[in-house]
Structures are given as C-alpha cells and as structure tokens.
C-alpha cells in the first residue's frame, strides 16, 4: 500500500453504524458526488419536480381562464403565477431535464471513465437549484416581473442570473467532455449522434447564457439603484424575456433530435449513414442560439407592405424562424431513411424510441407554430398562439428526454422499461401535449389574448371550449409524467437489466455493466468505427458503413 492509499478500514465503514447514520452518509455522498451519473440524476429529479410544480400552476391558470372572467385567484396572484409558469417551463423543467440527461449519458456514450470538470458540473447543478429556490421564494413574496416588493424583485432577477450561471457552468463541463474524454479511436466524427447534438446544445448555451447573465446584471443594478434605463421590474421581460420564448427555447431541443437518430439506428438495425446531414440538422436548429444572442424574442415579417420592406424583414425571419424548423425536418428525413424497409431487416421498436419520436414530432409542431407566429399578417402576436408554441416545444422536449431515460434505464438505474409499459405512457403524454398545445394555438387564431400579454381575462365566451380542451390536455400530460416517474421508480427497484448489450445497440455505453459502476468502464474500449458495438456482434442487418 502506498502512502496515499485510503485505509481499507476507513473505506469499509464510511458512515457510522446505525441505519440513520448510514442514511445520512448516503445522502451526503449523493449531494456532494462528483460522479456524472449522480449529478445528472439530481438534475433530472429537480427537473421532474419543477415540471410537476409548473404543471400544477398551468392547471390553476387554465382553470382561472376557462370562462375569461376569473373566479379562482386574485389579480396579484395571477401575475405571480404567470411568471412562475413561464419561468418554470424553461428554467425549472426543460433546462434541467435536458442538462441532466446529457450529463448522465454523454460520458458513458463517449467511453469515458468520468466527465471533464465534474465539480464544475456539480457547481452548475447547485447554482441552478439555489437560483430556482430563490426564484420560488421571490415569487411567493410578491416578487416577479409585476411584483410589488422591491427587494423580492431584486431577488427574482438575481435568481434568474444564478440559474443562467449554473446552466453555463454545466454546459462548459459537457462541451469539454465531448472534446476531451472520448475513448481511444473515437474521433469527433465517430462520436454518437446524441453526443454530437449535446456538443451543439452545450456550445449554444455557452454562447447564450453569458449574454442573459450580462443583461440580468444590468437589470439588477437598474432596479436596485435607479429604475431609469430598463423600466423597473416590468422591463425585466422586455429585456430578458427572449430566453423564455421561441426561437431561443428551440436550442434546448437539439439533444432530443440526436437521441432520436441514435435510437432509430438501433430500432431499425442499421448503421447511420448521412451523419454529416444529421449534424447539419443539429446546426440548423442551433441557429436559434444566434437568435437568442441578439436578445430579441420575435423576428416577424409583414407581407402586406412594400417589397423592399418585406425583404428587409424576411431575411431575419427566415434565418431565425424557418432554418431551425428546416433543421428538425432534416433530422426527421435522416430518420426516415433509416426507417426505410430492407430485405431481411426487422424493426425492433422500443419504449424509449416511441417516447423520443413523439417528443420530436411535438417539438416540430412547436417549430411550425413559431414560424407561423412571426407572420404578422396572421395577427397571432400577443395571442394565446405563443403559449401553444411554447407548450409544444417544452412538452415535446420533456417527452423526448423521457425517451432517453427509458432507453438508458439499464445503465442509469439497473432496471429496464419495456415497450409494454412505456408505450401507453408515451401515447398518453403525446396526446396530452398535442391537445394542450393545439387548443391554445386554435384559441390564438380566434384572438384570445396571451396570458403573457393580457392576463387571464377575455371577452369572447366562445373561447371557453378551447381553454377547457387545453386544460384537459395539460392534465393528461401531468398524469403521463407521474406515470413515467412510477415506471422509473419501478425499474430502479427491479434491477432486472442484463449486462449483455441488447440486440442492435451500437454505442459503447452498452459495453459496461448494468447499472454502470462509479468509474463507468472496467476497461476503456478502443473504437474503430461510429458503431463499435455493432462491429463486435457476429451478424448484423447493417447496410452501409
């Protein structure tokens, strides 16, 4: 034993003798862990809790505006709840869920024993979590964009800055991991498509979150000391609201599309050709990051005007609204090529794939909605259509992330989530998300004002039906979320996963035991192609390399 080894006695009894001491020790180990799987799981757990809280708020707001008259909540509470719902969808649900899945799965996919800068990722987790808690405290005490308590408004702005800082820190660790911790032989070109999409996503966050942080620094100083430059607390949404809407939120969806292609290759038993085209699709969706750094939330075009003016507005509209949509279409086209039937080939659909496919399709609905929203001639700006678009993007992202959690359940929890259990949940989640989003979009076409612009009141009683449908959709989606949580808990308890790689899998995370040990791999695999596990299997239904 060298002088730096830990004594075996000290390792054997780390947390005392009693059950309580052992439990406290285990909790302390989890909360201070530098294991990327633990950090990822904590991010996901926080995201699921944030999502459920946001869904409760959404249901309350939907109930409030069923008849456009308001009967449940007082006006002050509505303002706080609208802030809570808007921030909750992005910062409490979408961001932590996608970050958590990426942190948990990417190092495994890369064949790495740990992620780069794990302490930075953990710092990102706790900065995000601290910011979220402070955000809730500020909203509960009359803070927020329409809050009446100046100190709580300051806290509200500071909490957003903390969450932005946490996201940037976690993204930095993720991007560095993809660049530096790949297994021997795994060039960036051979990296799994999910990891490549996470690189685009993390790079986008590194570009966007500092810009948001800088704006929030200005907003904090202005609100605290002068309130002349940015319009006080009301100006917060004018100056920083772009992060809560499309196209900025589209950058969060990039990993869902990478996950879709990785799983499609497994389901259809083929090597993924056209990897360059897939990467192009991720990059096109990543253009939403460029939209975000302009600090604008809307790139609109009016066709009913002079040609020169149309062209002037059309270029940014096409660039920031239509190109991300094109990126989503390109990725789905690559998947369609993978799905093309082949002689002797059989598809092996999985629950994870179904969830991810439904999620991607609903995100695509949100992208189409975003493209329509920017056409001012349709008179959708300021209506509930924007809410429908955000709902589609965020709910779709959540379903897609659930697909990843189901796919990697053996490596992350040691159990499996079979298609028999997850398919009904996938259908329920997709139906709920689609109904909630489309109902709001229709209400937008019928001129119902947006919660964000006009509160919960409106005059036309014919709109009630669409609000009821949206409420039902959100409730169904919430039930599906709870159902998926039950599936994950069940998988974790069952520990029924096999160490042998399932048929058709291609990437190196399947070469380790289930669940993956602390240092991921007993032997770091050497990679010779983009589908290293497929190379090991004696017979494949592969087509092209």
């Amino acid at each position, binding site marked *: 034993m060298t002088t730096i080894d830990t004594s075996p006695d000290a390792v054997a009894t780390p947390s005392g003798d009693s059950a309580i001491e052992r439990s406290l020790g285990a909790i302390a180990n989890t909360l201070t862990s530098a294991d990327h799987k633990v950090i990822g799981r904590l991010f996901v757990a926080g995201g699921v809790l944030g999502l459920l809280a946001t869904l409760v708020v959404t249901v309350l707001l939907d109930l409030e505006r069923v008849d456009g008259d308001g009967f449940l909540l007082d006006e002050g509470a509505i303002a706080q709840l609208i802030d809570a719902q808007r921030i909750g969808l992005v910062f409490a649900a979408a961001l932590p869920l996608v970050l958590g899945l990426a942190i948990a799965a990417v190092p495994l996919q890369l064949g790495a024993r740990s992620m780069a800068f794990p302490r930075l990722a953990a710092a990102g987790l706790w900065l995000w979590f601290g910011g979220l808690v402070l955000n809730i405290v500020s909203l509960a005490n009359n803070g927020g964009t329409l809050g009446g308590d100046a100190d709580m408004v300051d806290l509200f702005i500071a909490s957003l800055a903390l969450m932005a800082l946490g996201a940037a820190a976690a993204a930095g660790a993720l991007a*560095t991991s993809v660049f*530096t911790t790949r297994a*021997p032989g795994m060039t960036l070109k051979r990296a799994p498509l999910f990891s490549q999409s996470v690189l685009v996503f993390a790079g986008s966050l590194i570009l966007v979150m500092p*810009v948001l942080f800088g704006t929030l*620094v200005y907003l904090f100083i202005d609100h605290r000391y002068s309130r002349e430059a940015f319009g006080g607390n009301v100006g917060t949404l004018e100056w920083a609201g772009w992060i809560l809407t499309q196209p900025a939120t589209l950058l969060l969806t990039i990993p869902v599309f990478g996950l879709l292609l990785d799983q499609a290759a497994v389901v259809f038993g083929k090597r993924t050709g056209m990897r360059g085209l897939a990467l192009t699709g991720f990059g096109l969706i990543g253009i939403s990051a460029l939209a975000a750094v302009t600090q604008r939330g809307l790139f609109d075009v009016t066709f009913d005007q002079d040609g020169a003016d149309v062209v002037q507005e059309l270029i940014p509209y096409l660039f920031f609204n239509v190109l991300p949509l094109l990126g989503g279409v390109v990725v789905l086209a690559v998947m369609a090529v993978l799905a093309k039937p082949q002689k002797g080939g059989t598809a092996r659909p999985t629950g994870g794939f179904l969830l991810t496919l439904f999620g991607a399709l609903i995100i695509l609905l949100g992208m189409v909605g975003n493209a329509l929203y920017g056409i001012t001639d349709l008179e959708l700006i300021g209506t509930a259509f924007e809410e429908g678009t955000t709902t589609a993007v965020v709910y779709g992202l959540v379903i897609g992330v659930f697909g990843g959690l189901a796919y990697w359940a053996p490596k992350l929890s040691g159990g499996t989530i079979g298609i028999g259990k997850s398919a009904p949940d996938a259908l329920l989640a997709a139906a709920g998300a689609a109904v909630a989003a489309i109902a709001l979009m229709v209400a937008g076409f019928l001129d119902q004002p947006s919660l964000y612009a006009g509160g919960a009141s409106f005059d036309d009683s014919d709109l009630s039906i669409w609000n009821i449908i949206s409420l039902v959709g959100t409730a169904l989606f919430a039930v599906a979320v709870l159902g998926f949580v039950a599936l994950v808990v069940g998988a974790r308890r069952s520990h029924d996963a096999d160490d042998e790689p399932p048929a058709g899998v291609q990437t190196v995370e399947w070469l380790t035991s289930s669940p993956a040990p602390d240092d991921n791999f007993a032997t770091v695999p050497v990679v010779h192609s983009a589908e290293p596990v497929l190379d090991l299997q004696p017979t494949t239904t592969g087509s092209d390399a």
Partner: protein
Amino acid sequence: MEALAPPPPPPARRQVLVGASLAAVASAMLVGGMLAVWLLLRTRAIDAGESWLPSGVTIPEVPSNIMLIAFLPVCVCAQWAHWSATRNDRANAFLALGITALLAFMIINAQFFVLYELGVGVSDGAYGTLFFGITGVFLALMIVGLLVTLVTAFRLFGGRTDGELLAAHAIYWYAMSAVFAAIWFVVYVTK
C-alpha cells in the same frame, strides 16, 4: 529476455486548455452582450435628442489608456510563462507569472480609480447603471484572472510544468485583452 511492447501513449486530454477556451468565449459573449445593450441605449438617447453622457462628467482617459496599454505586457508575460515552463525554466516562469499578477492588480487598481474619479454614481440614471454594470463585470473577470494566475503559480510551485495549464492561463489573458479593448473603444472612446 524479450520485453513486452510498450503500451500506446494515452490520448492528449487538454481539458484545461479546452475549458479555458470555452471560458474565454463565454467572457467575450458576456461583455459583448452588455456592450450591445450599451450601444442600443446610447443610440436611443441620442436619437431622442437627449445627452447620453451626464453633464459635468469627464471620463478619465489617462488611466483607461494605461489599462489598455498594460494588457500588452500582460499577454507577453503570460506567454513568457508558458514558454519558460515548457522548457522547464521555473525561475523565469515564476518571474513572468509574478509580473502578470502585478500588472493585473495594477489594472484593477486603475479601474477603481476610474470609478472613483468619474463623478457619476450607480444611481445616476441610465449612464451610471450601464457604466457600473459593465465595469463591475470587467472587474470581476479581472479578479478571476488574478486568481487564475495565482493558482497557476501555485501549481507550478507544486511541480506541474507540462505547459497546458500555462497555455490555458495565457488564453484567458488574451481573451481579457480583447474584452478590454472592446470596452475601451465603446465605453471610453465612443463614450
């Protein structure tokens, strides 16, 4: 007796270098976004016929110019430290890091002097808010840089002379130089 073939060399990790590069990009985006807001509000004020610079305010140009000039030796010294460390010349590396830290401290001091001499408070309207916001962020980035230099020196003292850490250290200071050049042009020259 035959010897076993040597194992393949471990792949270059360069995590610190990549991390520093990403931090440099993030710093540039942070300050770039803040300068964009500065220029937008400045343009709006001028278009509305208002005076952007509060009356009676004189920007202390000498210390701001000295800060800009000081970044040149900062970069040279950071590169000198890297050059020395890769040649195992610890004495020169320490000397270079020491001068880097001293110059960084001098720049921080000059920035505080500018804030003190400016004659505008943080609560004095839009200009005060933006000036204190952007210079405050710059000060925070400088303090981070100073800490990076001190940690690098400590690691060098501990025997780490592989050059990667010092290359990362140099990248950070190059980025800070670019960041301050942008601040200098927008805030101190264009005003």
